[in-house]
């Protein structure tokens, strides 16, 4: 039967396969895939063994146990977005430095050419 758990299981498996395929085709760098693979496994384990979900639900006083899945997914997305912005920030710093160095080099080259022509 199709319920939120079986859907979750199917989705987790599909998700893991797609992630691995992206890594295999080098469309996703290994270091960025780790968080996703980890996420896929956690979701797979949680949805295939409702025991954990129900324990967590009781602990957090959540009446409808499967909503723990949504909560986890949501929290994970927020963490991942934060992680992404740190990656962007680092990249934007690197791009700035590259831009500066290239501009300096280019000017130096043109300047030397001009000197030589004299």
């Amino acid at each position: 039967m199709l319920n939120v758990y079986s859907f979750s299981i199917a989705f987790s498996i599909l998700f893991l396969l797609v992630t691995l395929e992206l890594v295999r085709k080098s469309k996703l760098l290994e270091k960025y895939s780790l968080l996703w693979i980890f996420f896929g496994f956690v979701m797979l384990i949680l949805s295939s063994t409702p025991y954990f979900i129900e324990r967590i639900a009781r602990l957090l006083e959540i009446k409808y146990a499967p909503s723990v899945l949504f909560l986890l997914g949501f929290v994970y997305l927020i963490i991942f977005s934060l992680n992404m912005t740190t990656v962007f920030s680092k990249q934007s710093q690197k791009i700035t430095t590259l831009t500066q160095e290239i501009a300096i080099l280019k000017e130096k080259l043109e300047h030397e050419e001009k000197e030589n022509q004299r």
Partner: protein
Amino acid sequence: MGKQKVLVIIPAYNEEKSIGNVLARIKENADADILVINDGSSDATFKEALKAGVRVISLPFNLGIGGAMQTGYRFARDQGYDIAVQVDADGQHDPVYLNAMITKILDEQYDMVIGSRYISDTSYRSTFTRRIGMIIFSWIVYILTDYDIKDTTSGFRAVNRKVIEFFASNYPSDYPEVDVLVKLFKKNYRVCEIPVEMLNRESGKSSITPLKSVYYMIKVSMALIINSLRSGEAT
């Protein structure tokens, strides 16, 4: 003392109307090399600056004032300059003061000298929001560092070799003027202000519109506070 190599760095973004005149006036007033950083201008800033016979580094796209100035400091570091002076391209900063600023660094061993428009009675008039902003920034800098700087956002500044090297590897990209002051004070660099008259800009408008000024203030204040949490750590 041997001859000091001085570089005047002029960050320029769409300043084709004023840049030529600014460069001519700098040449009249100072014995220094001049470097224009053309920060991705879409107008003829590059051509106008080249026409004046100075070196021009053209960034392929707009990096903003921080990224542009850092380019200049990197150049100054690589070419072995002893002193670098930042002068705006819009004609606000009167090159008449260049020698006074440079002398101050050489004779009194300051690490940075700021051309300040508020330190004495100058005829400079600024908008109300700007004045309030200046007072708030001064106050924040004072609280964070115990140093009293009147014109914290002035872009008219001269620095020595030590600071050139520091800036070359370490310069904030957004709204750097105030931020940098706090950083320098934390590292015990010596900073002073000398009074200057600011001229009315020859062309263009301030990059800070009234609408943006509140956002500007919040952003700079946040950056300052976050920076101060970072104190002591390696930069």
